[in-house]
């Protein structure tokens, strides 16, 4: 079966004063119906930019190119205004990092929720309000009648994120993009929101594209994942496989950054290089403990297991992992 969303060789360049910023350099991934796929990386690695490109909401100055960029086998690059408008809400819906600012402060949340439903002509106002009510009930924003008339500032961050989720579901999208959905929330609320997302996904059968820096969130929610570093996907595979048998030194390093009781954190030394000008070889080599001279010229793509690929000169066999200390059972994240 063909995937819902198929991206091959996506590049995003952003012209700036210092030169062309090569923000995304040839990444590929696909998301099938009902699947949940996570993109993990540090801030600035391009994961949000990737999400925005799928949403067609890149900044005006950004230049996008790709070998394939298709939604249900249709070329997204050929989409006109009308097709994008149709895709937004109906095909793809999104929730964002800051629930505090993602809702319009001067409109009641009911009005904001029914807006896309009415725009996409899925029914009249009454139908829209009743669907909004059902969804608010479902995500636990009650009493519904009062909540629909409330304004965003009358709600907490966790409630607003629930409203955002309900709003995203209004038009029954095939894919929900969640860009750091829990980062701005406190820990207990994070867990609740993640559980809710997972439940809703099971209920509705929609696919989920989760953007996060938090490996714990990935372990909680996603089936497959991609690790991004400095505009490239360095490792991709099933969550179980990547987290228990990380093959790329960067993934291992990320895993050893997770706090464990009684052990000091190991930060990754060095900084992400500037992505301006010609870039060659492995972009992680200046921070990598395994770097060798050849890393400056070539980066082969290797497979650990079917579906679990990484870009590195180091060969891993099926049994081992890069740094044994970092390999952790999957349950440790949950």
């Amino acid at each position, binding site marked *: 079966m063909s995937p819902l969303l198929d991206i091959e060789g996506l590049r995003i360049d952003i012209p700036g004063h210092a030169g062309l910023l090569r923000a995304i350099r040839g990444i590929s991934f696909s998301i099938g119906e009902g699947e949940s796929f996570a993109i993990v990386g540090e801030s600035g690695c391009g994961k949000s930019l990737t999400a925005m490109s799928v949403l067609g909401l890149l900044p005006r100055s950004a230049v996008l190119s790709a070998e394939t960029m298709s939604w249900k086998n249709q070329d997204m690059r050929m989409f006109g205004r009308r097709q994008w408008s149709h895709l937004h809400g109906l095909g793809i819906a999104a929730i964002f990092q800051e629930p505090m600012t993602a809702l319009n402060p001067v409109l009641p949340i009911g009005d904001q929720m029914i807006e896309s439903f009415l725009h996409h002509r899925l029914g009249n106002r009454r139908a829209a309000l009743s669907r909004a009510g059902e969804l608010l009930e479902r995500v636990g924003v009650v009493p519904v009648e009062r909540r629909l008339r409330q304004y965003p500032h*009358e709600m907490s961050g966790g409630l607003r994120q629930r409203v955002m989720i309900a709003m995203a579901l209004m038009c029954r999208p095939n894919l929900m993009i969640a860009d750091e959905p829990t980062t701005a929330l406190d820990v207990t609320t994070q867990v609740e929101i993640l559980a809710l997302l997972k439940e809703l996904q099971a209920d509705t059968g929609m696919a989920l594209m989760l953007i996060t820096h938090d490996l714990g969130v990935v372990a909680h929610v996603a089936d497959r994942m991609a690790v991004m570093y400095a505009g490239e996907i360095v490792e991709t595979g099933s969550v179980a496989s990547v987290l228990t048998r990380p093959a790329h030194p960067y993934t291992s390093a990320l895993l050893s950054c997770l706090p464990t009781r009684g052990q000091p954190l190991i930060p990754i030394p060095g900084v992400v290089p500037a992505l301006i000008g010609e870039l060659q070889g492995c972009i992680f080599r200046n921070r990598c403990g395994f770097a060798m001279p050849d890393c400056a010229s070539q980066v082969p793509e290797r497979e650990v297991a079917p579906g679990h690929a990484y870009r590195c000169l180091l060969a891993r066999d099926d049994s081992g992992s890069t740094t044994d200390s970092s390999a952790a059972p999957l349950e440790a994240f949950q």
Partner: protein
Amino acid sequence: MLSFVRGKLLVSLLVLLTVSLVGFALLHLSGDLAATLAGENASAEQIEEIRRSMGLDRSLLAQYASWLTGAARGDLGTSFFTRETVFSLFMARIGTTAILAVCALVVALTISLPLGMLAALRPNSWLDRLVSSLALSGQALPSFFLALMMVSIFGVTLRWLPVSGSSTPLHYIMPIVVLAVGAIPALMRLTRSGVMEVLEQDYIRTARSKGIPTARIMLNHAMRNAILPIISLSAVQLGTLLGGSVIVESVFAIDGIGLLTYRSIQRGDFPVVQAMLMFVSAAYIVLTLLADILNAWLDPRLRQKR
């Protein structure tokens, strides 16, 4: 909402009282009103006579008290010169000035809101640059110059429009244009910068991700937020316009509030000046209050702070 308005009204009353006191003091301390009234060739006795008959020989506080009690009953006194009541002088002119002011503001808003919005949608486009340079030249152009140029072109050379008086609607066109040109630059800039700022907000991205078309995003999401400071500025500008423009009223020979105030100041017609001062401050206060109420109605966050 009611307590919000009540609180504002109380403050407004205090402001009005303060303005009346300061204005009264300044007018009386700025020179000998009796001497001014008596004229250049008056004898000392004549001046004294006027001082007594006008009640100007009493203490400043006593004079203020009697003015205030009169004003509280709605009696603003009579003009020293025309012997008409200040109220009738005012009523004869406020209509003309109010028409000019309201029309000028409406014209200014009709032009600056759409242009400011379009400029904000496409920053640094040719339209944005055109709008910015229009605003700049509008601001740099003195209104007396624009008024005189318009009179010479449309009045004298082309003979399309009458140049003096206020007897027909056609008479109002040029003064309204001149006043509007004065108000447009600030409104247009504020619209542009306000909309640009709002378009950067996360909730605009949310609206786009829902597939809402740009026109609807502009009106329903962006303008609903960007309009708040524009309402406040419009209130201030309408207040200024209601005070009358001496230049515009002089050039187009319109007998309005501006000219009345100007002449009264020149000849020391104290009751009229004091009344006009009170009118202009009251107009500012009422308009600002209306703007606050309108903003609170549009923005729920402002409502809750009270």
